[in-house]
């Protein structure tokens, strides 16, 4: 992933893992909750993005747990992913600050 902006799904997956490790289904549910049901990842897209984040070292498999006799991976944010997410949050916050400043300038000019 480049230093420009992260793709939305990747950013949302990292955000979902920012405060706690989660398994695949819980990550999907968390993404739905974060976006107020605007983004509902499908299984293929979810696992495609998780595989990519794993390959890039932004997330890691924290453990495998067995539920109902079936194993599932629990994913967690890797140190590189935390660093990347913080940088992304700072970039988004800077953009938001600039948007507010310009909107305020525009409102003052029209008043």
């Amino acid at each position, binding site marked *: 992933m*480049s230093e*420009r902006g992260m*793709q939305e799904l990747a950013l949302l997956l990292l955000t979902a893992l920012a405060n706690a490790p989660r398994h*695949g*289904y819980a990550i*999907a549910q968390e993404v739905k909750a974060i976006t107020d049901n605007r983004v509902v990842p*499908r*299984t*293929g*897209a*979810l*696992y*495609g*993005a998780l*595989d*990519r984040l*794993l*390959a890039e070292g932004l997330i890691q498999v924290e453990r495998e747990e067995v539920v109902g006799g*079936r*194993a*599932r*991976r629990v994913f967690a944010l890797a140190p590189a992913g935390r660093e990347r997410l913080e940088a992304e949050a700072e970039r988004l916050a800077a953009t938001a600050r600039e948007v507010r400043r310009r909107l305020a300038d525009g409102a003052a000019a029209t008043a």
Partner: protein
Amino acid sequence: MNEFLVRLYPAAYRAAHGQEIIDVHREMTADLSRPARLRADADLLAHALRVRSGLDPASPAGRFFALAAPFALAASAVECGLRVTRWYAGLVFPPGPVRAHLLFLDGAECLFMLLSLLVCVGAVIALTGRWRPGVGVAVCGLAPRPWEGSKPPGCFSTRVPPSAWRPAAGISGGAGAVRVPTRAPAPSPA
């Protein structure tokens, strides 16, 4: 159905994650309507095929194709655009009314030109910001002509390429079009 879809993953991937994917897919599609479930199945199918073909975004080949896709699309559009331009010039420049030429047009040739036009329109849509719909349109133009041996539709990765690459691809495609002069076919001696 889920078991069948997961069987499309390569054996090693299926052995490692197949059951996990089946369980998650089942939970995620439990409350969906039938059309929504079919779309979810299609998404899983696409992921399985991408992993099987080594074109998933996690693989080096998948990343390469994601970067190369806009350029391949631009090249296809230039190729098709030149073909349409030559065809149009061949229709307009020879003496005689255009309507008379149109009457003797071959149906297959018309279809071929229509598909070429579809590729051009799709490339413009994709390279100007709407990647997925644009690629869909372009692939509709490319897919029915496998004999062409040009860019395989599979090379247009479903991973959206970095937006910064799309103008570059468009510009290089445009430069390619400028470098190749288009001429009307020479009139036949007869």
